[in-house]
């Protein structure tokens, strides 16, 4: 069991190198499909100097065009930064192109600069998110409705009856309540008190008359970005700087007080390795242990602009020595 995740950070990449990374992400998704991956995950952030993927539905569409059965997850889609009419239309076109294989985890986002970029009020983002989710749900129903007093009808109707699956992701009680209120499944970020999130989620769902959906909060120290190598020391030397870039960028975004949310407080590759947390470089035996513990091996092959050749050598090893021997 594995999943692959792509966020397309590529610090300092030349135009050719960046286009190579995009090609590799698509080919690696096809590889993941061949090897029975549960999903490919793509995510959204804006105005990141390392080129973080700003338009995940666009990459998801390219992946969908080169695969036939692989489920694709857009997580998170920062729906509050989008016009919900345009987003619903894009989801519908992608629903057709993928034949119903793309689902979404909606996230609020936490970087004011992203809200500024789209002229949205950061302080008002919760209220706007409520409005956007309601409009998305109405738009994906295939029926006409009103949004901000304007007549809206998203055409064509979606491939998936009722529209593609939406869930909501976040780490706060407010996020759990919002998911419950709109009848969405909830995907928690690492939390100190998952039980409190779950009870908030269930209560909000019941109050709004929804059957509670799926609720999942991964435990705080679980592996989320794994690289599999023959030799772990050498693997940290080769892959570590790329993983560290990823960890440090998230760290910058959430601020020094929220290291738990960022997933790491490391400032060196050695510190990242010592954390033995979200970021792991393991040998095939270690990969099998992660599968045994977590049920799935979360691969992040192009993390921090990892050169495709280096990433492929890790994936080849996974195919040869992890997936065959289990």
């Amino acid at each position, binding site marked *: 069991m594995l999943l692959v995740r792509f966020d397309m950070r590529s610090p300092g990449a030349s135009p050719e190198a960046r286009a190579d990374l995009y090609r590799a992400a*698509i080919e690696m998704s096809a590889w993941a499909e061949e090897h029975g991956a549960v999903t490919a995950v793509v995510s959204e952030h804006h105005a990141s100097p390392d080129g973080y993927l700003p338009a995940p539905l666009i990459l998801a569409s390219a992946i969908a065009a080169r695969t036939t059965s692989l489920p694709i997850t857009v997580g998170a889609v920062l729906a509050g930064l989008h016009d919900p*009419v345009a987003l619903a239309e894009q989801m519908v076109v992608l629903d057709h192109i993928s034949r119903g294989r793309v689902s979404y985890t909606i996230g609020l986002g936490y970087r004011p600069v992203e809200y500024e970029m789209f002229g949205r009020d950061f302080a008002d983002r919760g209220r706007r998110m409520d409005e956007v989710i309601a409009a998305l749900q109405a738009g994906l129903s295939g029926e006409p409705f009103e949004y901000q007093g304007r007549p809206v009808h998203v*055409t064509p109707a979606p491939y998936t009856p009722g529209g593609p699956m939406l869930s909501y992701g976040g780490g706060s009680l407010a996020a759990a309540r919002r998911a419950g209120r709109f009848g969405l499944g909830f995907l928690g970020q690492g939390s100190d008190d998952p039980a409190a999130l779950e009870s908030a989620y269930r209560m909000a769902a019941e109050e709004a008359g929804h059957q509670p959906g799926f609720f999942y909060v991964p435990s705080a120290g679980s592996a989320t970005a794994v690289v599999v190598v023959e030799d772990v020391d050498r693997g940290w030397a080769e892959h570590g700087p790329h993983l560290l870039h990823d960890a440090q960028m998230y760290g910058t975004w959430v601020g020094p007080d929220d290291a738990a949310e960022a997933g790491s407080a490391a400032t060196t590759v050695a510190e990242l390795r010592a954390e033995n947390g979200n970021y792991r470089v393991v040998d095939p035996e270690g990969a099998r242990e992660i599968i045994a513990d977590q049920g799935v091996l979360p691969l992040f092959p192009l993390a921090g602009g990892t050169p495709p050749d280096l990433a492929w050598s890790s994936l080849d090893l996974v195919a040869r020595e992890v997936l065959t021997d289990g």
Partner: protein
Amino acid sequence: MRAGIYLDGRNPEPWAEPWPDFYARQIELVVEAERLGADSVWLSEHHLFDDGYLPQPLVLAAALAARTERIRLGTAVLLGPLWNPARLAEELALVDNLSRGRLMVGLGAGYSRPEFDLYGADPSTRYGQTDALVRELRRLLGPDGPITPPSVQRPPELWLGYQGPQGARRAGLLGAPLLSTNPTSLDPYRAALREAGHGDQAARMAGVVTVVVADDPDQAFERVLPHALHQINTYRAAAAAGTGRTPSPVTADKLRTARHDHTTVLSPLEVLTPDQTVAWLWTKVQGLPVEEVFCWASVGGMPHDLVQRHLELWLGEVRPAIGDW
């Protein structure tokens, strides 16, 4: 002169194919067009059409980028006033990366009132907004632009889909290539290019040609006719909606008459043999700086056998014959 195809995502009743098959077929059609030598595929944007008209061409463009190697991917056109410039620039940059620099961006001002209402956009300043969008995209996606990741082409080629002489003047002032083959546009376009210091040589045109190529044009014409009527009349209805005007529908007889009337500039539908198509194209483009023409792969959901033959003849016979124009 280059030759491309044009897709609109229309799947109209009563000829609609099952939606689950529709987009897979659109992608296969473009893969086949590339194999047959097409230089480009252009995608259109419209909203609120009952036939499912493609509302988000860049999502389809990304899928096409992943399934093709060489063919250029164009928009003809994106409706400028409906887009947030930063969002659009990001999505264009992504498609340009996925296609390794094969993107061409055609922008238009839009004309259907309900589409403006759908996005809360102001139709009264739509040309000004679209001109401003061109300048903003040049900045955002230019060599020093802030968009991350940057596009491969900095910026991608930005075309203006302005049809009349006023629009041609705007395109000329912006020094932009013009997505129109309207001969009455050339003089104002060139004059504006000169006025803005770009020079006559900067004049570049491309555009849609409303032709279906067939072995037996008379028979094919009658089969395409109901589809062409759907296409033309739904465009007219969209243009009139919300204006208080009543659209004047085109009838089958009108199209039959127009077919042999070469005095009209923009014929609504021509169904021709490859030789006739080449001759007809010459009358349309001679004396104009037209570097590329493209035709609907399918007019209003026309029968698959006609689509297939149309593409074989357009790309296999017409394209080679016009290549050195």
